């Protein structure tokens, strides 16, 4: 079984995993909504910029984005500005995972918003609401129920994708157990890692199921 030092290491690793996933989801939700609105907006510039953003961050691997932010960006800034720009690995993870998650969430939100009957927008306008009021007070709240499965999905995927953080020198859960396993030759540590990941994702799944029921109560 595990001794105390190992349990502490696993808890620390799980901590990194959780915090990166949580921060990424929060960033993704907030900025994803903005990018989604940009995508459906009639303003040509906003539309194009949002399109390019989603195109780039969905079209390149998360690992590549992480490398670019942690390894390449400091070197580029150093060449351009002459002064060093060291970046904390955890901050690099927050940024990379956040930007990536924003792109995916933007598409979920856009799908959710566009699935709301056009009649709702027309009715809001008929009542004298502006576009923004209609969006934020009527349309978006109605789209919550449709978004929840996708957002839950994204959160669960983020929990697992955080294992990529080991490439920028963060000892997350998977790397911690992998190191324990390779130094002892015992595969049982992988089982522990699987159990912890399953525990986290099950809690998220359960939580989102409850949320869905609550939000969809009136439908």
């Amino acid at each position: 079984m595990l001794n105390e030092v190992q349990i502490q290491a696993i808890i620390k690793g799980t901590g990194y995993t959780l915090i990166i996933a949580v921060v990424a989801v929060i960033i993704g939700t907030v900025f994803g909504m903005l990018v989604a609105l940009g995508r459906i907006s009639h303003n040509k510039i906003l539309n194009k910029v949002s399109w390019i953003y989603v195109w780039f961050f969905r079209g390149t691997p998360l690992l590549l984005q992480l490398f670019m932010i942690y390894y390449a960006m400091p070197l580029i800034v150093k060449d351009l500005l002459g002064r060093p720009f060291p970046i904390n690995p955890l901050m690099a993870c927050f940024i990379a995972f956040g930007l990536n998650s924003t792109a995916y969430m933007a598409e979920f939100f856009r799908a959710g918003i566009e699935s709301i009957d056009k009649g709702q927008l027309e009715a809001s306008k008929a009542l004298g609401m502006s576009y923004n009021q209609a969006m934020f007070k009527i349309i978006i709240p109605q789209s919550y129920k449709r978004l929840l499965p996708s957002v839950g999905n994204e959160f669960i995927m983020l929990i697992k994708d955080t294992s990529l953080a080991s490439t920028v020198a963060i000892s997350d859960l998977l790397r911690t157990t992998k190191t324990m396993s390779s130094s002892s030759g015992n595969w049982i540590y992988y089982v522990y890692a699987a159990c912890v990941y399953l525990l986290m994702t099950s809690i998220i799944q359960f939580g989102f199921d409850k949320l869905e029921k609550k939000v969809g109560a009136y439908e």
Partner: protein
Amino acid sequence: MKKILALIMIMLLAVGFTGCTSKAKAADPAVPAQEATTNEAAAPEAAPEATPEATTPSEKLVIKVGTDDAYPPFEYHDEATNDLIGFDIDFAKALAEEMGVEIEYVPTAWDGIFNGVNTGQYDMIISCVSITPDRIEGFGMTNPYLSNGIVIVSAADGEQATSIEQLAGKKVGVQLETTADIAAKKFMADGTDITLSQFDSVMEAFAALKGGSIEYILVDSSVGGFYISNDPDSFNITSDLLSNEPIGVCIAKENTALLDKVNTGIKALQDSGKMTEISQKWFSADFATHIDSEIKVIE
């Protein structure tokens, strides 16, 4: 119902076809390697003193060598041709010629590489493996074939650290699970307050040092020397050797026959001057003979 059945049948047929063809293709080239490897994979498990035998007199025995192929200048891929090159690769070639065998490399990530030699995935590890008391206990370590020790590498435009004390309160990078990693943790346990970043590969650590995300690296002296010769404006070796841990070949503990053969091979290469030649090629100095084998490690 009929449609679903038809769909399932088609999928099964497709899977069946692809399964057959890939097996047929894989079978042929695998056969000669299989014969050689099943023989010597069985040998360490069957009897500790059994020597791997060639299956036929004309066929050369294939020895599998595990190596972390992202560790210049010992083993890495040439930027232009992607060939595997390095000091260890030249050494392995010379050793193979001396022993009359063929080498097959098994690229493996460093932080799991020692498992493979115990499970028989490869017969030995030639990957800048430092000889340490722990490894002597757990594995069959050959005689050293290269001098080595840990040094501190500083960024050229930063403070140059000449000793461990100067690392206090600084960001230091190491490759995960190397002797440098163990040394850094020992320094931290002894009270030096180091902010340690552990990288999967040493190349990433140097990239981070260049970018400024870390301030120092603890690494093998030859590796540090190589990065500096490639990029002299960015890095400097700023300390003496902090440890003495010459490099040896790592073999499974029970496989004493292979260990003896490799030791004989190393001695022959050193006597014939081949080791000096390879060392001059990669390090412009002879670190491969007259090796100080008194091991001083930090752990």
